[in-house]
C-alpha cells in the first residue's frame, strides 16, 4: 500500500492534485462558519448551479479556458444573491432556488442542443459530480489555482476581525462606522471564487458540502470563533488529503470520496458532542 503510494507520488499529476485539492479545501472551509451562521448556506448551492450554467455556455462556444466566463458570471450572481437576500419583497431563499434550478435546467438544455461532444452524459456528470479533471490539471491551471487560493487566504486573514464583527452583528458593526456593505461584497466575491475553484475538485453539486461540513463539524467541538475557524480549516484539509489518496488508490471518484469523508467526520463530531453532553463534562 505505502509502496504504491510512494510510486504514485512520483507522478506530477498526483502531486498537482494534492496541492490543488488541499488549497481548495482550505479556502472553502474558511467562510463556512459565516455562511452557516448568516443562513447563507444555500447561496453556495445556488452559485454552484449558476457556475454549471456558465460552464455549459462556455463549452458550447468552445472556449478553451472556461474560467473567463465562469468566474465573472459567478461573482456577479453572488453579489446579486446577497443583495436580494436582504430584500424583503422576494425572499432570499426563494430567489436562490429559482436561479439555481433555472441555471441547472438551462445549462443542461444548452449542452444537449448545441454540444458536439460524443459523450454528453459523461460531460454533464463530471461537471455535476467532479470529474477526474483534478488528475489532469495542467501546470497553468495549478498556478491559477495557487494564486487565487493564496489571495483568498490573505484576504480572509486581513479581514478576519471585520468578518467576525459583520457576521455577529451587522447593525452594530455599521453603527460603529464599519463599511458593512463593502465587507458583504467582499464575502460574496470570495465565495464566488471559492466555488469556481472547487468545481474542479468536487463538481457543482457537492460544493456546498465542502463549504459547510467542516464548519458544522467544528462547531460541535469548539466554542470560540477562532478555534472553530482553525479547526474547520484543519478538518477540511485532512479530509481532502485522505479523500484524494483513497480515490487514487481505490479508484473511487474524487469529489464523492472527499464529501463522504467530510460527512463521516461530521457524524463523529456530532456523536462526540452527544456523548460529552451525556456524561456532562
Amino acid at each position, binding site marked *: 500500500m505505502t509502496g504504491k503510494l510512494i510510486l504514485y507520488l512520483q507522478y506530477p499529476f498526483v502531486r498537482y492534485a494534492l496541492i490543488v485539492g488541499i488549497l481548495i479545501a482550505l479556502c472553502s472551509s474558511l467562510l463556512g462558519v459565516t455562511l452557516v451562521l448568516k443562513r447563507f448556506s444555500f447561496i453556495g448551492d445556488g452559485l454552484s448551479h449558476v457556475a454549471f450554467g456558465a460552464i455549459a455556455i462556455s463549452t458550447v462556444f468552445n472556449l478553451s479556458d472556461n474560467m473567463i466566463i465562469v468566474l465573472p458570471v459567478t461573482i456577479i450572481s453572488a453579489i446579486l444573491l446577497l443583495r436580494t437576500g436582504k430584500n424583503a419583497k422576494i425572499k432570499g431563499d426563494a430567489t436562490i432556488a429559482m436561479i439555481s434550478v433555472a441555471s441547472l435546467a438551462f445549462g443542461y438544455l444548452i449542452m444537449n442542443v448545441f454540444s458536439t461532444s460524443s459523450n454528453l452524459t459523461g460531460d454533464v456528470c463530471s461537471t455535476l459530480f467532479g470529474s477526474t479533471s483534478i488528475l489532469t490539471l495542467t501546470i497553468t491551471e495549478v498556478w491559477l489555482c495557487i494564486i487565487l487560493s493564496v489571495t483568498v487566504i490573505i484576504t480572509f486573514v486581513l479581514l478576519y476581525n*471585520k468578518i467576525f464583527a459583520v457576521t455577529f452583528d451587522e447593525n452594530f458593526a455599521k453603527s460603529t462606522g464599519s463599511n458593512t456593505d463593502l465587507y458583504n461584497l467582499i464575502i460574496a466575491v470570495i465565495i464566488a471564487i471559492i466555488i469556481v475553484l472547487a468545481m474542479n475538485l468536487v463538481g457543482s453539486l457537492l460544493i456546498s458540502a465542502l463549504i459547510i461540513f467542516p464548519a458544522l463539524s467544528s462547531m460541535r467541538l469548539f466554542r470560540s470563533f477562532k478555534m472553530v475557524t482553525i479547526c474547520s480549516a484543519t478538518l477540511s484539509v485532512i479530509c481532502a488529503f485522505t479523500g484524494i489518496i483513497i480515490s487514487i488508490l481505490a479508484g473511487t471518484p474524487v469529489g464523492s470520496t472527499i464529501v463522504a469523508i467530510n460527512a463521516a467526520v461530521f457524524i463523529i463530531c456530532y456523536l462526540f458532542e452527544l456523548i460529552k453532553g451525556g456524561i456532562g463534562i
Partner: protein
Amino acid sequence: MALLTIKNLSLGYNSKKLIENLNFTVGKGDYLCIVGENGSGKTTLIKTLLNLNTPVSGQILTGEGLKRNEIGYLPQQTDIQRDFPATVYEIVLSGCQGRCGFRPFYNKEDKHLAAKNLELLGISDLSNCCYRELSGGQQQRVLLARALCATKKLLILDEPVAGLDPKATEEMYNIVSKLNKNKIAIIMISHDIDNAISYASHILHIGNKVFFGSKDKYIKSNTGKLFLMKQRGA
C-alpha cells in the same frame, strides 16, 4: 452645544410617515428615556440616530467632539447570535472595530479597553465562556461591554431589560445608572414606565402626541398623565 441635537426630524418607511418634525437634544450626562406605544417608531428613531436608517428629512447634529461612529449601541438580540460560536472576549473586543478603521488587527490599547470594560461590568471571569451558553442577563452585559468599547460619551440601549427576570432587570438598571454617573449620556427605549421615570432625567414620548422635556415636567403634562395611567392600568 449638546452631544446630540435633533432638528425637524421626520421618519418613515417608503410612503408611510411615522414621526414628523421631531426636535430634541441630549446633553452631557443626560439620561433620556424614549417611551411610546408599540410600533410608534422608537426603534426606527434610534436606528436613524445610529446611521442605520436614512431620515425622510431633518438634521442630526453632534457636538462636544462626539463623532457619529462613536456611539455605543445595545441592540435587541438577533437570531444569529443565539447559536453563534464565540467567546465573551471575542465579542467584547469586536466593539473596538470602530477604533480600528482599516487596521486589520487589534492592538494593545484595544485589548486593554476590552479587559477594562469586562471588569467594569463584572464579567471578567466569563471572558473565555461561550456566549450562547450564558443567561439572558449575562448576554446583555456582554453586549453592553461591547457597546462601551465603542464609546466614551453616549450609549443607546434598545429595550435592555426585555426578557430578563426581575433580579437581572434590577442589576441592569443599576449598571446603566452607574455608567450615567460616570458621565456617559444614556438614551434608552423602555416599556417599563415606572423604572424609566425613576432613573431618567429626561423623557421623550413619541406617538400621536409628542413630548420632550425633563422628567418632572412629563409627569405633570397631559401626555404624561394619560400614558402613565394607561400603562399602570394595563
